[in-house]
């Protein structure tokens, strides 16, 4: 397990899952906007979408920081 999480394959898998989170988060936000508009009932879904985009962004940042690091 530890060897796997240190491998380049794991880093790439995190990058791909980060992209997945960004796309999924944006899809949730767009779909919610289309169906519920900007009502208060839609707020949890918007926060969920934003959190997914943030988690995806974090994975991108980690990946590029590791690549450019020492």
């Amino acid at each position, binding site marked *: *397990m*530890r060897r796997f*999480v*240190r491998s380049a394959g794991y880093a790439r898998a995190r990058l791909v899952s980060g992209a997945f989170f960004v796309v999924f988060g944006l899809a949730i936000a767009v*779909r*919610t906007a289309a*169906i*519920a508009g900007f009502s208060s*009932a*839609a*707020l*949890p*879904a918007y*926060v*969920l979408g934003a*959190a*997914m985009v*943030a*988690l995806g962004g*974090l994975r991108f940042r*980690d990946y590029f920081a590791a690549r450019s690091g020492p």
Partner: protein
Amino acid sequence: MATAAGVSGKAAEEPSLRRSVTPWGSFSWGYSDVGADIFVGLGLVLGAAAGASNVAFLFAGIVYVCIGLAYTELAAAYPVAGGGQYFVFRGLGDIFGFIAGWAVLLDFTIDIVLFAWSCIDYLSKLVPILSFTAHPWVHFIVVFGVIAGLALLNIIGVRESSAFNELVSGLDVVSETTILFFGFLFAFEPQLLIHTMQMSWPTPFNLMNGVSLAIISFVGLESISQAAQETQRPASVIPRTSISLILTILIFALAYSNLALGMATGHTIPLDAHGHAQPLWRYLGNEDNNGAAVAVLASYVPYFGVVAALYVPVLGAILLLISSNSGVFGSSRIAYAMSGTRLLPSAFQRVHPKFRTPAVSILMFCGFAIVELIFAALPSLSPPVRAIYVRLFRGEDGITFLGDLYAFGAAASYSFVFIALIALRLNDSQSPRRFKMPFNVPFTYKGNRVEFPIVAVIGFIGIVSILAFTMITHEIGRVAGPLWIFFGIVGYLIYRRRKGLPMFGSQGHDWRKAQINILQQAGELEMMDEYLANVKVMDERRAAAGGPA
């Protein structure tokens, strides 16, 4: 043995923990504790907040993000094993350090019972004889056996390996993501979600109840700071892993609650007790299923549900068992550390002569856990007691009783952590902080440039609201929680008086020496140099102003 190293400046003389926890290890350590919470919290919140369950999770989630940011900053600046108790002890002094530690101890003892209880609830989905509602005595005896077994294993010094922890955490992240993926892809209907929210919006009382229960889905982030003393390069690793963990748990909580409210099931849901059809969220929140809601939800996911119904109860049970064990381990270690700083009697430091584990602490807190189990299980075991509970406590079921106390302990200790963070920002501006909560207002305090954390104030208001909701809505929590704190304070004052220590004040602590030891042991030598330079500048400034160095 872990102690809050450096708390009295003696860390250099004591054996220290090996720093072997990697970034993934740090994440999985936290995940195995916090990740289990949604397995317990989802059903309880659905039962209380109905159509506003996602809003309850959102409110608690925003407060949790503030708590997470506070723990991240403090754990990266003070990488020792004491967690929240240590931060409060250092920031606010002995008595508040004791109160925060005592509230954390309440949470750890509840953690032991709540997760052992829920572990058996999950297993009952595969082994019906373990069902709490159908066979309460069997359920009680098995949970009792689990707690006794964990106590025994901890006394003889057996813990699950961190590699096992990492494997289970990894499997669970994949499993939960897969359930959500299939659920949202094949069964989620946004119109149904909006309809449920509009038609089943709870009363303000039930919404407050739901919010106070939702916070239990976010308890345990403390584990990362508990592990800080064993983490490699904690100042840089902890912020990365903490923020990933905060976002992951927030996403799971919001996603599961939205899915539960807006999921159209492929097959029929059993009728309720009155023979009426019921929506999925109500089925998940009833007494039969609220202890194992994630497993039941997963079994209703189209296509994937057939497989999920077989393995999710087992995976959930394993994760919950690890979490229950972390309660046994954490309570004994915090009591040991508090005893070392003379906040608790020295009996809590007594170790078993053969196994070298804090046997007295383990037995005592597992004993408390057994008492809590009896209180939680009594109404289902004895009809006359059930009648008393109905009259006095609105007939709360066992798992809700445990949830009440868990929410109280968490909200109480987190409230102090926010105040400690503000106090440490003002009084210990010399300690380098590799991570800071966002949105700070810089100003000059006692001649030093400091930054006032706005997010900590928001978080404090949020967690105090949740504490108030707990007190308003939980009949048992409002009595038992404050009583725990009250008797703890009485015991503390008697102990301090007998030992001739300040009852309300603090003993003298050499925090500078302690901080140097902490940073040196963490291998954060750059931070240590920065700290020494900051201290030197401050002393020179004070000397120039004619004050004490």
